[in-house]
């Protein structure tokens, strides 16, 4: 089932095209990462999903329905602009935000206590929000988002400013929600987290979609052409082969990239006749590599276009 569908959405702020004709659809029950450099249009896209700002053009549907305002109780949202009533006590804030999601009484309190315990905030339960550190406030807000176990969680930069320990706590929460069959969308510009958590990625730059898809597919698309090769024999074949785009000889091994459309299997067959192969490894590029190279390629394309 498609839980989120966006079709040709656009949003312009003055001269800036914050979101430029982006389309995507996201499968329920998966973790989706929205990646992009700062100012790419991630937050604007998320705000449009949340019906906080209205697209200039294009269509958005959540849960197969157009008006997401009526779906609010099924969505948990962690905005980029984080804020919580500073003068209220931690427990009261959570009870209030829970009530807005339709949680009440003992059930709400049990959920709150469980999450406070897990995120190591139990001793702060009766303290005022303003007494908490920034990281703790962020965890508090994460609790508010997760506590109702919404079918769809939309998290804008959930790891921003958190130390590795707290980052792990949040990751566990996200994965746990996925296990329960809920859908998570989060934005980030840290590829490490995305690589470990995401089922699919959506890469945005300058308001435009650069690529999207299942993370395995994306990697295959990029990675099948990179090869690490260690051999004994004459290096002539590197020069002679028709399918090699470029190569780097590091002495102990060679890193090479095949031309588009070339099959690594056939390449392997062609070289075993000339040299002895010690190691032949198809490299999966890291998400970081994909990110950097596709953003660069996209920007070059834009410049050429202009």
């Amino acid at each position: 089932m498609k839980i989120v569908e966006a079709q040709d959405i656009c949003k312009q702020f003055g001269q800036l095209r914050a979101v430029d004709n982006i389309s995507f659809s996201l499968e329920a029950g998966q973790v989706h990462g929205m990646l992009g450099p700062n100012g790419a249009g991630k937050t604007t896209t998320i705000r449009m999903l949340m019906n906080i700002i209205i697209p200039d053009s294009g269509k958005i549907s959540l849960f197969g329905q157009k008006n997401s305002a009526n779906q609010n109780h099924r969505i948990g949202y962690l905005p980029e602009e984080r804020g919580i009533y500073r003068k209220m006590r931690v427990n009261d804030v959570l009870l209030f935000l829970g009530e807005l999601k339709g949680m009440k009484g003992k059930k709400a309190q049990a959920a709150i206590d469980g999450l406070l315990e897990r995120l190591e905030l139990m001793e702060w339960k009766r303290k005022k929000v303003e007494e908490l550190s920034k990281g703790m406030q962020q965890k508090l807000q994460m609790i508010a988002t997760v506590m109702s176990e919404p079918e769809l969680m939309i998290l804008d930069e959930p790891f921003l400013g958190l130390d590795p320990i707290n980052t792990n706590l949040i990751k566990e929460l996200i994965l746990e929600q996925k296990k329960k069959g809920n859908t998570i969308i989060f934005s980030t510009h840290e590829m490490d987290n995305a690589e470990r958590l995401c089922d699919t990625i959506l890469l945005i730059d300058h308001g435009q979609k650069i690529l999207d898809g299942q993370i395995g597919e994306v990697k295959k698309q990029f990675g099948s052409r990179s090869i690490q090769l260690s051999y004994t024999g004459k290096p002539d074949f590197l020069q002679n082969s028709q399918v090699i785009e470029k190569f780097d000889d590091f002495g102990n091994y060679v890193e090479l990239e095949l031309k588009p459309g070339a099959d690594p299997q056939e390449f392997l067959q062609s070289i075993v006749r000339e040299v002895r192969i010690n190691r032949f490894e198809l490299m999966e590029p890291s998400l970081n590599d994909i990110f950097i190279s596709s953003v660069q390629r996209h920007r070059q394309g834009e410049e050429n276009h202009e």
Partner: protein
Amino acid sequence: MNSKTMAVVKREYLTRVKKKGFVIGTLLLPLLLVMVFGGVFIFGRFFKPASKDLVVVDETGRIYTEFTRLLPDTLRSGEPMFRFQEYDLGKQDLAAVRSELNNKVMDKQIDAYLIIPQDVIDSRMVTFSSRNLTDYEEQEKLQRALSRVVSNLRLEDKGFPAEVIREEMNLGQVWLEGIQVTQKGEVKGSGIANYLLTYLLSYVLMLFIMVYGQMVTRSVIEEKSQRITETIISSIKPIELMLGKLVGICLVGITQLLVIVGFIYAFTVYGDDLLAKAGVQVPELLNIIQNLRFTPVVFVFFLLFFLMGYLLYAVLFAAIGAMVNTDDEGQQFLAPVVILNILSFFIMFSVAKNPDTPSALWASLFPFFTPVVMFSRIAASAPALPSGAIISLFTTAAAIYLLLLVTAKIYRVGILMYGKKPSLKEAWKWLKY
């Protein structure tokens, strides 16, 4: 109202009512009000304690004794109000005496002097010379006493015996008893108590509308400046949030009003006993408060007009809060609205005295004036209802509804706009979103 809105109502209400400041403020406010209005009386006492030295030049020689006998008034301190000195004219020239007395007045040796001419019985003209003539009450007192003495003398001259005249004059003294004619029949009235009640309650009404209206602005700005809005708005529609806020803060106001009115009521019922047990003498002002006719009708309208006045102003205040980012920015938008409210209080002063004139009716039907002005008419005419009282409830409700339609749009867009403060022109554009 759905459960989300109720959650907002509950939060807005409880976070405020639980504050120490609210508890203290609620208990102190009745005291403060008594001090403000009591202050007027008390100041009056502070400024009027001195006896006046009054020289009387009695050319007839027949008036002074009786005149001073008629003015035995004392000040609250027990001192006589006037200290009379008779000036023995002898053979002196009147002009010389005048300039001598003028000098004494200027040197503040005496406060004023009266010259009763030889022919006063026919001319009926006496001069009163003083450094200032602002105390018309005092002059009226003197004039009344002189008139009485001269009338008596004229009767005496016609042959009536002096004792008979004096007795008849005393017996002929007439008192006015105020009776207010209302639809429910005749009601005995105390002008001053009713007046005071009207002012006091109208003042409280204006004050509460302003204080609680601005609380709405601050509440909206708080959520904006602390970036809370986006979190909340993912769970609740802006209009629900706005309504919850309006109702929650309104309930805080009503709580405070009920406590204060409860105090006043309890005082009018049990005040005497309590003060007597404590051995405290009941001052005059408190007596007046005890005589207030705080009838159920007045009370109901008081609450109704607080509700309506608050809502009318609060929807504006909410929109203002949504348009700005800080309290400071809010001030310049708040000013015109606050002035509108204060204006209604000034109009109330003249309307309360003449609640039945057409201009009073029209002033009280202008929605932004209705709460304070119409209420003052109701309090002044109690227990009868003035014209337009019921209609005004509907006109105000209609105004609130129309204003809510407009401001809800401004609110919806404004609460999510950070950064630059919008011009009025931009706010106008928000209406079309």
